[in-house]
């Protein structure tokens, strides 16, 4: 674990996870991607949102894992779920059926309008610079959830003017372009990074810096963004992690590491 001088006592990954977890209200039905979304969602469940409903694409509804899953289909997810359904059912009745409040996603790239790329790096599909794992469940989560949240580290490789490949729809080209596309839901309402939180402008839908983690400056955020980052008129200062938040998150990661024989923290 590396500690930065500007926010001693916790890592950027930790504050990112904690801030994301704080936003998840009790009772929310959350479709959870593996990795950071899963860590944040489970932290929320352990903290203030005991009745948050976590759905994983393996078909586990109301999952309550004691340790973080390493894969989307860990037995841990099934063991304590309210019910386990088939994969086609998850995508038919629960995702396309419009039953997801928050689709909580990661990605390799996010662009100025919250569109996501998890397919390739490079612009030639046939000859990519890097071949990524692919879409998985994201395109339909992004176009059917009532809103989507994106959790992603912020730097010039990840925050790009335009995604190399549009895997999953955000606000498309901004304005009312998403609404016109036939996508349902509000689209990305928050992008939570290790520097702060971006939200779409109400009219243009361009991602705008709305909050910063303790010790992070607007200049740092601008420097880590691949477009001319707009700044909200009032940038919120995100509260530092509480002791309870940090202990709960670290306990979760330690239990997970013991169970899997490996740390799942992405830091």
């Amino acid at each position, binding site marked *: 674990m590396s500690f930065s001088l500007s926010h001693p006592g916790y890592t950027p990954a930790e504050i990112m996870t904690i801030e994301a977890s704080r936003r998840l209200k009790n009772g929310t039905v959350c479709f959870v991607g593996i990795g950071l979304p899963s860590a944040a969602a489970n932290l929320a469940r352990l903290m203030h949102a005991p009745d948050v409903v976590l759905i994983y694409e393996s078909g586990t509804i109301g999952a309550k894992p004691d340790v973080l899953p390493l894969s989307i289909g860990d037995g841990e997810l099934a063991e304590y779920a309210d019910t*386990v359904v088939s994969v*086609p059912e998850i*995508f038919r009745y629960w995702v396309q059926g419009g039953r997801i409040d928050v689709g909580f996603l990661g990605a390799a790239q996010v662009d100025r309008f919250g569109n996501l790329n998890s397919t390739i790096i490079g612009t030639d599909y046939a000859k990519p610079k890097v071949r990524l794992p692919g879409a998985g469940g994201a395109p*339909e989560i992004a176009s*059917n959830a009532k809103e989507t949240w994106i959790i992603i580290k912020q730097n010039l490789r990840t925050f790009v003017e335009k995604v190399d490949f549009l*895997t999953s729809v955000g606000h498309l080209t901004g304005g009312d372009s998403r609404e016109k596309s036939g996508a349902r839901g509000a689209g990305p309402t928050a992008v939570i990074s290790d520097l702060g939180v971006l939200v779409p402008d109400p009219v243009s839908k361009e991602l705008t810096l709305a909050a910063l983690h303790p010790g992070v400056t607007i200049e740092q955020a601008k420097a880590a963004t691949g477009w001319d980052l707009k700044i909200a008129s009032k940038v919120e200062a995100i509260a530092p992690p509480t002791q309870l938040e940090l202990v709960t998150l670290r306990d979760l990661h330690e239990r997970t590491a013991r169970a899997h024989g490996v740390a799942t923290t992405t830091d």
Partner: protein
Amino acid sequence: MTSNIMSLSDAIRRFVKDGQSLALEGFTHLIPTAAGHEIIRQKRRELTLIRMTPDIVYDQMIGMGCAKHLVFSWGGNPGVGSLHRFRDAIQNGWPNAVTIAEHSHADMAGRYQAGASGLPFSVLRGYVGSDLPKHNPDIKSITCPFTGEVLAATPAINPDVTVIHAQKADRKGNVLVHGITGIQKEAVLAAKVAIATVEEIVDNLEAPMNACVLPHWTLAAVCEVPMGAHPSYAHGYYERDNAFCREWEVISRERERFVEWMKANVMSTPNHAQFLTYAGIR
């Protein structure tokens, strides 16, 4: 009644032929690894491999030259990283060129459902705004005759052969899939021929009334292969071998080491039990 219970090597020999389309399905849980190894041992070639989540066993089959085409929606080593043999094949054509057809999970699931339902196509509320349809001619659109809405349409999947792994079969060959059942039922019912490997064959399935049971007459072969899903897991039997999944990252990175490992562990062992012993897994 002739029984569908036979050895895995017999099942692969009888039912899997060069040039076929094959789905070895399993969603993180119950991945039919042993069956993939046997297909590698029997040197099947020019296969179209179909799977929502190709992972280690498809990396092995691709790296050993079984595949010519891959249909998928997410390819990776879950919790670890990329598939090196998969990348080497599609980026560098090693050991042979492999083409891809890429979809989303929701779409693949719907395509299997259509296949199982005797329908030629699946309708999906999906791909809105996505670039995927630009690169996949199998993703078309269809207009609702009632509302005029435009939705995605994709062709049914009907593999020549589907292989799954499950917990139990009874002596008639009825198979119980328990826990995360994934897309297995649909993949079996969509296939022209289906094979199930199971952890054990028992006198009585003891299946709850609404459990996922595949009747024996939907399966051409049922093969008892303990630990047949390793390094994946079988709920109630054994856990995922996360250490092996991480080790695969190292084994598979370079061509030479990969080939050496496959030869030593898979090609030179006659069956899964001996593979497990030889590879130090069990």
